[in-house]
């Protein structure tokens, strides 16, 4: 019977899952994060939201789009809008160069690119270490972050970015 096969598999899966959990290290909530910089500030975003990183090619600005939208690019046959977080977070502006990269972030309903000055890499980070952002932080920024790591890296809230009514232009 299919059903009993399934049950056996299920039991085994549960058993295996438990073993891994036991042998898991001291990290309470380790997660892969993609780290990048904007000006000198380091930011991190959960890797599961970041599907691709690429150099910026020719961006086509869209007249009438909000200022934080740098424009659109074509990437693998798909039109992707690029968001300049520096504008969104009201940080200092700097012109884009060929060294800029974009990170495509996505959830099931939405995707867009965010522009980064440089990519640090993918790091395992303990999400439990995140501290709440200080009150002094710019309001435009605090709306989209989960907090700050002890090393000063700001953790972005990808889900908030992807579902924000400010960002999704209808």
């Amino acid at each position, binding site marked *: 019977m299919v059903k009993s096969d*399934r049950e056996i*598999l*299920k039991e085994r*899966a*549960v058993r*295996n*899952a438990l073993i891994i959990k036991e042998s898991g290290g001291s990290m309470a909530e380790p997660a892969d994060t993609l780290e990048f910089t904007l000006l000198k500030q380091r930011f991190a975003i959960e890797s599961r939201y970041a599907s691709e990183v690429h*150099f*910026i*090619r*020719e*961006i*086509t*600005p*869209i*007249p*009438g*789009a909000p200022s934080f*939208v740098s424009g*659109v*690019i*074509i990437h693998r*046959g*798909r*039109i*992707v*809008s690029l*968001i300049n977080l520096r504008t969104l977070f009201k940080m200092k502006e700097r*012109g*884009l*160069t*060929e060294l800029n990269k974009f990170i495509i972030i996505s959830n099931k*309903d*939405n*995707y*867009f690119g965010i522009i980064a000055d440089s990519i640090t890499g993918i790091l395992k980070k303990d999400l439990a270490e995140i501290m709440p952002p200080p009150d002094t932080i710019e309001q435009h920024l605090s709306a989209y972050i989960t907090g700050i790591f002890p090393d000063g890296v700001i953790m972005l809230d990808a889900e908030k970015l992807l579902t924000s009514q400010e*960002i*999704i*232009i*209808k």
Partner: protein
Amino acid sequence: MLNNYDNDSFLKELLNDFRVESIEHYESIVKGLLDLEKNDTAIKRQDIIERVYRDTHSLKGAARAVNLPEIERLCSTLESIFGYLKKGEITLSSQLLDILHKALDVLKILIDNLSDNKQIKVSANSTIKNLEYIVKLSLQQNKSTTGPETKNSSRGNQQESLHQESSESEVTDINGGSENSGEKEVEIHDREIEKHDLYSVRIPTGHLHQILSESEDFIAIKTTLDYYRRCLENIHVKHKDEELYNLIKDLISFQKVSSRMIDDLIINIRETLLSNFSTLFRIVPKMVRDLSREYSKEISFNIKGEETEIDRRILEDLKDPLIHLIRNCIDHGIETPQERVDSGKELTGRIDILIEKLIDRKVRITISDDGAGINLDNVLNSAIKNGVLGAANADNMSKDDIISLIFKSGVSSKKFVTDISGRGLGMSIVAEKISNMGGSIEVTTEEGKGSSFTITLPQTISTFRGVLVESDGRSLMIPSVYVEKAVRVSKDMIGNIGDKSVIKCVTGETLGVVRLSTVLGIEKNVGVRNERETITLLILTNNNKRVAFITDKIVGEYEGIVKDMGPQLKYVRNIAGVTIIENGRIVPVVNVNELIESTSEKSESYERFQTLSTQDNLPDNQKRVLIVEDSLTIRSMLKNFVESAGYDVMTAVDGLDAFSKLESENFDLIVSDIEMPRMNGFDLTKKVRQKKENSDIPVILVTALESAGDMKRGMEAGADAYIIKSSFEKSNLIETIRRFI
């Protein structure tokens, strides 16, 4: 864990399947109910009841399979009612019909709740109780009416007991024998699917759309081929060369063949995606019925030509406009029964929909009613009241002019606003949506006799043709259908009326003149703007509005597909999407409808002619820079840098391209990369220096090469400056350019 996940996704998939299936059954049941109301021949009725009975039965089984007890119970109740109807044990009273319709509404909500995030709280329990109650009542009624009416009373009694028996067995079948019937049903399904498979393959439409959209991307290949052909032809004009000539000839024939292949492929895939109107109209009769009840109107609704096929995407977009038009017919068109009788009409109003396929791959939909017609005075008054029309202009308007006013927003023919219509927004949206699909809408109306709306649409979404223009340094695509003409006029021909600049056409008409970039909110770049004696105007028209837009340059006409800008940019005012031209360049496509509206909304965008001419006093010495760079990234970056410094920039992809551009146009300075295919920067510099007419153009070489030897080579070739890319900064380049021009 894994197993669990698989189970979940399997269940999700199942639920998805159920949703699709249940909607089909639901729509079929609704259609059946409406047909029952219309058809009075016993045989037809019996057919319909049989069909609906099977639908309720299948849906019940499916609901049980995915463990949705509420839907299952509701369907089971519905099934038993149709069971009684089938056997003639109860009759279909209008009261029963109403309750059945309500039950179907509940069913629809239950099905929708499966997918929607916002759950509408609804319980099938009360509905089921209502249904059971009315069945009980009907059964009793039937007994009491059939009893005395039958001549042979004993036979009547016999029948009665038979009814009871059969109804009891029906009940046990539903409750006790459920497993059996479930299995049987699965068998039937399997067999049906098998039979189906012999003739067709079931593919999710999403998949087909993916294939279609991918194949539509081939259109970019067509335009790219065309672009390269033109490049080669330009070279050939200047350097006659037999080999090149033969190459171009081959390219042209290849271009022809591949264009035809691509067109055929796209047409074929589009045709597989055609679907017929019946999917859309399955929901409409119920809507008509519900609304006519609500408004106490008697309406007979007839559709002809449902089998006509049309692109599914058009059909989806057509849904809202059509529903709006039909609602309009019910609310505005058809009078109340009393009014109809008073004006000597039949009590029941008619709404007819006729769908026809025209010869040229077009589909025509005519929606007509025999109601009151559109009251032209109301339209006029509404237009004047809402400022759409000046009172002075109203006098000499023809009937057609007045009717076309209903498509302007803010105009309504109705004096009172109701919840479904009369706000004067709807018709303008209808007209806009239809024109966005490449269609048109016309109205004819006769007071007291009715109105008729005729929509003509392409059968498939047509590839769009657009005019590529440049305005303040930006490339923009204007769909050709809106372009009335492009003209170059002398500046003197533009005059002023009030605070508007206008131009008098040959026809004597006066058109407003605006700068395209101003309306689109593209930042003015005073340094860049190049005012010449002649001005290029693009006259755009939509819904009888015409505006002349100032553009800097009309590049040419292109074919393409409008793509949306991704889920983050769902809507941008005045922009319909983007299209891809030539070698992968993205160009925004202007939504002309909104553009014209935006123009009239902000009167300040009507540029005064004075401001235009004062531009003349600004330095007319806008310099042109030619940027030669093979890397797309660096090319566009350089272009932005140099443009933002106030120069007019043209780009070339390599030395050869640059050289051919130099032949046809004048530049004040060249910024060139060194390492490029076909002709490198050194050779380009040499060639430029050899030519008499450009020998004095400053040349700046920008390169990754850092050795002193290269710099020496550059100087020898005749370059004026040499910038190393690795140490290269924006200001550095601009400063260097400023030194020369």
